[in-house]
């Protein structure tokens, strides 16, 4: 067992088998993500301004708004890829100064990489044990195709590899940009399962979703309101 994240003297303990368990002696809600008066600009048009938002541990927030209102920009800003014009984003400090788990539109697999090689490299890069890769592959249903190079994998299969990445290096904050796209019904069921598990263990999720998954969000952030 080792600590996964610390937040003002509260410790989040990583249980055996990679599960996150919020330690007993804590108040139930720990702030994972706090945004205040955030402004975002793309080129010269203003996407949103004065955005305030708070996400607690165990909460699932749905990010809504028509296309082009800056959902992806907001997620990438929280992940730290884009600098905010004004306003601040405060995230819980993850284990080993990692960033949050970011699942974007592109899957991050080079053409000649196989699921197994990609996940092994991913585990090594993040100092995670390689031992649990086989059953994670089993969990996302890629055991049969673990040696197939990426150029002959379907978009859905590559998205499952991306989901497997979240299991190999557990992190508290998940940022999902239309996670259900390219997934078949079985894939979407798997996605919901993983999200439910993550929330039960004290993690938080901010996801830009259109079609409503079975999982009902605890709160909704509509970017249209901040345009």
């Amino acid at each position, binding site marked *: 067992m080792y600590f996964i994240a610390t937040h003002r003297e509260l410790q989040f303990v990583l249980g055996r088998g990679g599960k996150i368990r919020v330690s007993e002696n804590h108040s139930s809600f720990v702030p994972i993500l706090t945004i205040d008066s955030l402004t975002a600009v793309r*080129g*010269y*048009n203003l996407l949103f301004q004065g955005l305030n938002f708070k996400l607690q541990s165990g909460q699932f927030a749905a990010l809504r708004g028509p296309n082009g209102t800056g959902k992806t920009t907001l997620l990438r800003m929280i992940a730290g890829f884009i600098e905010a014009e004004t306003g601040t984003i405060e995230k819980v400090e993850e284990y080993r100064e990692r960033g949050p788990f970011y699942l974007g539109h592109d899957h991050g697999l080079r053409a000649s990489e196989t699921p197994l090689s990609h996940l092994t490299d991913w585990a090594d890069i993040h100092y995670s044990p390689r031992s649990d890769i086989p059953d994670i592959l089993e969990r996302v249903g890629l055991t049969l195709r673990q040696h197939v190079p990426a150029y002959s994998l379907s978009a859905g299969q590559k998205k499952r590899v991306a989901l497997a990445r979240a299991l190999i290096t557990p992190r508290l904050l998940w940022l999902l940009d239309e996670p259900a796209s390219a997934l078949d019904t079985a894939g979407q069921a798997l996605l919901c399962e993983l999200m439910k598990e993550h929330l039960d263990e004290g993690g938080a999720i901010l996801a830009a979703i259109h079609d409503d998954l079975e999982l009902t969000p605890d709160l909704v952030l509509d970017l249209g309101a901040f345009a």
Partner: protein
Amino acid sequence: MFSTFANPHRFLALSKWLMPLFAVLGAIIVATGWAWAFFFVPEELYQGATAKIMYIHVPAAMVSLAAYASMAVCSLLFLTLKHSIADVAAKSAAPVAAALSFICLVTGSLWGRPTWGTYWVWDARLTSMLFQLFLILGYMALRSAFQREQDAARAGAILCLVGAVNLPIIKFSVEWWNTLHQPAGFITLGGSSYAPEFYWPLWYNLIGIGLVFGALMMAAMRAEIFNRQYEAKLARMNRSAA
């Protein structure tokens, strides 16, 4: 881009009167300086009349080096303190620095033709000026390759700083290379050991070219700020209309 536009008003107010002053003053000084050098300076001992080209070549070289140095300083300011005015300054100084480097190279080779017999000599200063011109053109090309202004600014600033670090290295290595390949007794491009009647026109022209550089840079900066304000206002209007 919004918040950082507060302070350009100070610059706009300052340059509103400073830029025309520099422009007029610079034009007068350069015109008279060139005339002075062209008509009145007596024949130089062994270079003959061609020494007159020095009065364009040396000021252009000095001011273009100063221009690249100011671009590097502005790039450093932009990267560390995110002053968007510093980025506007660096972007506006580039064309002037390129023009002056070009003038320096052309006048240098024109001066070389009668003196050394060929248009191009791998003299250390000429060669490093050539590579400075390459770096500036690269800077301008890199900046225009990006759609978003922030990416262009950041990439340009990094390249400018890397270039600034390398220019002295290039100058040293070409100088060292020159001593190896060049036969002895080579006339260097003129130092400052001039007799007084040659000395003053050189300083006079230097001030003139310096003022012209200041005027051109400020004009380009004002144009750039107006452009950015125009686009920002246009975007705001589209959004309020949408």
